[in-house]
């Protein structure tokens, strides 16, 4: 590799060679000045909580933090639209000087009076952490006075990166919602889907399979969720954890307190769907359910076989690069590309943990480069040197990719294409085909034609 990397970043990038022990350096704070693709604690908390459709999400801080997070995610709702509004205390200079608690108190009262929401999440931003507003106290006071559940989310941005934000969100759910209502204890087959955010309607693509197996979905954390579903989530018999980076911590806490077991699953990709359904059926130990699961898988595989072969023919032999926020999706993507006959040459995440990278390493082919917390300059050089045929990433990577004449697929929280379930995989293959086989790349690489009109 000829890449010129900042000294402190060197060990964050590694190339797989056989059975090696080394992993890229990770779980570190971003290097100042390195243009990290990461966001802040607050943004992590929003990822986990924002899809809760009927709650009010109030950002306590200056207006910018709220402005940038207004309606930028693709999580869908079947009903309530409250979550698509942006609420901010819009702190002004005098609030910063004299403290923002009074304004917060009044803001909450105003919101409760106007919207009568089932709950309000109050997010702390950096500045609130700095001036030391006691969020908990204000939230407690308003809860007491109005009877509305006001939930402080300790997401001061500077406490770390997104991962800390996931944790703050999980704490908020665990401390203030889960366990605050009773549920139905009679039905034996209830699961919660955790780390499923109904982006582009993903949840609706997988829900029917569970129904068919006789499994009821108690609560979804947090795609298309309503506050009251989450309150009785502890009545479920099993937690299925998809986006491990965001909610494993919550699953563990629920296991400790409610003896509620959890399993890792993934609803993206053939293998993922197959495993998810079988894991569920096996857990409940019900023969009939297991048979039904197997039947669903058989039928669905048969159904999508044709389209998959169609796309495989068009994609086989191409190379792919993956740059995702968390590792779970990255892993599933490597598998999906294998299925399509494509080789992954680069895989990276914003904030993967050590065992995430170990898994990625195991799944990756020899020669694959693995990178942690990449910056655009590194990504650009990697993509070019490794001759990636397509990049899967988020919006920040899209135009970098385009400028390098590398096809691109958006696989992030703000995407608009459905990727979950059996049809989701076909949809993904279609999008990869759309970008890889577009005529635009030939035009871009072609030379200026002087005699075109003669």
């Amino acid at each position, binding site marked *: 590799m000829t890449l010129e990397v*900042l000294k402190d970043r060197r060990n964050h990038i590694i190339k797989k060679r056989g059975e090696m022990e080394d992993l890229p350096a990770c779980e570190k*704070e*971003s*290097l*100042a*000045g*390195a*243009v*990290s693709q*990461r*966001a*802040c*604690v*607050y*943004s992590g908390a929003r990822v986990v909580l924002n899809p809760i459709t009927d709650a009010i999400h109030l950002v306590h*801080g*200056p*207006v*910018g*933090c*709220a*402005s*940038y*997070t*207004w*309606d930028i995610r693709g999580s869908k709702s079947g009903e309530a639209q409250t979550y*698509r*509004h*942006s*609420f*901010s*205390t*819009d*702190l*002004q*200079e005098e*609030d*910063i000087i004299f403290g923002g608690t009074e304004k917060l108190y*009044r*803001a909450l009262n*105003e*919101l409760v009076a*106007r919207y009568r929401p089932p709950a309000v999440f109050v997010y702390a931003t*950096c*500045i609130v*952490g*700095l*001036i030391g507003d006691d969020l908990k106290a204000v939230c407690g006071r308003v809860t007491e006075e109005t009877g509305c559940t006001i939930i402080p989310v300790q997401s001061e*941005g*500077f*406490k770390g990166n997104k991962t800390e934000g996931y944790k703050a969100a999980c704490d908020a759910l665990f401390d203030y919602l889960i366990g605050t209502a009773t549920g139905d204890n009679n039905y034996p087959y209830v699961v919660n889907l955790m780390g499923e955010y109904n982006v582009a309607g993903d949840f609706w693509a997988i829900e029917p399979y569970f129904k068919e197996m006789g499994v009821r979905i108690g609560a979804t954390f947090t795609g298309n969720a309503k506050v009251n579903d989450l309150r009785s989530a502890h009545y479920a018999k099993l937690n299925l954890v998809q986006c491990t980076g965001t909610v494993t911590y919550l699953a563990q806490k629920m296991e400790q307190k409610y003896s509620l077991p959890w399993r890792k699953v993934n609803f993206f990709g053939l293998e993922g769907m197959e495993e998810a359904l079988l894991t569920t059926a096996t857990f409940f130990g019900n023969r009939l359910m297991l048979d039904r699961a197997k039947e669903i898988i058989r039928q669905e595989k048969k159904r999508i076989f044709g389209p998959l072969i169609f796309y495989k023919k068009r994609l086989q032999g191409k190379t792919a690069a993956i740059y995702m926020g968390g590792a779970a999706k990255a892993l599933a993507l490597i598998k999906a590309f294998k299925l399509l006959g494509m080789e992954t040459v680069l895989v990276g995440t914003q904030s993967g943990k050590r065992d995430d990278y170990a898994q990625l390493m195991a799944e990756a082919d020899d020669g694959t480069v693995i990178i942690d917390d990449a910056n*655009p*300059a590194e990504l*650009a050089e990697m993509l070019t040197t490794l001759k990636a045929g397509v990049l899967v990433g988020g919006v*920040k990577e899209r*135009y970098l990719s385009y*400028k*390098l*004449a590398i096809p691109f697929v958006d696989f992030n929280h703000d995407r608009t294409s459905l990727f979950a379930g059996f049809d989701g995989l076909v949809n993904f293959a279609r999008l990869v085909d759309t970008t890889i086989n577009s005529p635009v790349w030939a035009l*871009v690489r072609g030379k200026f034609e002087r005699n075109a009109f003669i």
Partner: protein
Amino acid sequence: MNYVTVNPCKTCQPLGAIIAFRGIEGATTIVHGSQGCSTYMRLHLTHHFAEPIDVASSALNEKDTVYGGAANLKLALKNVLARYKPALVGVTTTCLTETMGDDVNRIVNEFKAEEQVNDVIIIPVSTPSYTGAMVDGFNLAVEAALNVLAEEGEKKNCLAVIPAANITPAEIREIKRIIEDFIPFIFFPDYADTLDAPFFEELPLIFPGGTKIEAIKRVGSCRNGIILGVCGGKNLAQLLTEKFGVAACRLPLPVGLKATDIFFQTLAEITGKTIPAHYQWERRLLLDALIDAHVITYGKRVAIFGDDADLVLALAGLAVELGMVVAICAVGPSNEQFVRQGAPAESILNPVDFDELAQAVRKTRLDLLMGNSKGKFMAKEKNIPLLRFGFPIHDRLGAGRQQIFSYRGAIQMVDLIANTILENEDLFVSFS
């Protein structure tokens, strides 16, 4: 609501500062604060301009907020210099570092001494966002850059042109096309090519383009100056006049017939030249377009909104020329100048958020909305079309390529507005 901003119609100051620094050749920016602010701004700018946007952060964490951000900012500067090899670095502050009270000037001077940096210019700008908004941040950055770079000098036949409002790369190109015909000029900050960049054979780390540092120095030797914007940019006009002795005036954005007339007249007065014939011709083409459209647009009711008062005013001016009724003129961040200017509207809202604006929109009959992408909810609710102008436009392509300035831009606008009305009402009677 009194204590809650619901669906804000503004963003924050550093965002504007980032855009301004994009207008200097070889420049890059560091946002001094925690990682999130810079990432969000990059995301926002990328969505809008459809370009990759690199903005570094000093990535402060909790302990830095106790001991000050000096060490992190210095490290950030060091890494940015090593990686991007910039000619200039803009350092914008955030709410966090402003509240911490970091003395960025001192930190930067220390850094330069410690690392013996002589050939890179570093310009700090204070952009706390608990006051002001994006355009203010833009203007503050321009002011900071002029303060550091421009030198007072013997006055020459040269015009300094400085935007103090939300204008697009394509509009910068249009302004330059026109002024070129009148007088030697310096356009600053010129982000035309850095925020609307072409496809490159090989991707440069910093996009080529931007006002040359050499040229910014000479702003102080220009005999005349034009600030584009009457609501923003007071600080810039003052700076040019008082510090550098440049005779500067503030003009409305050249949108629509009358505002463009003012622009051309001013150029003619400053240079003593007559307006070239082809512009006279373009003016007549616009008149022709206005006549073609007048029956379609007459009496149609429009609401115009955005976070930049000058753009909102300019659009309102054009709407009036089309015989439309401006039912609502709304500007997000509070702006005294805007209120004082008095828009030709039935109701003026300032400051305002989209919640309040939506309530006003609900109460009145409307045919059209003009403003940024965030108006899409109102458009959907009312089932009327939204023509997207301003910032952000994140759900359509070509925000940076939009061009509504001068007679030429107005001609496109007239057709666009008329056709949108026709499309929506489905009442087009064929003229053929």
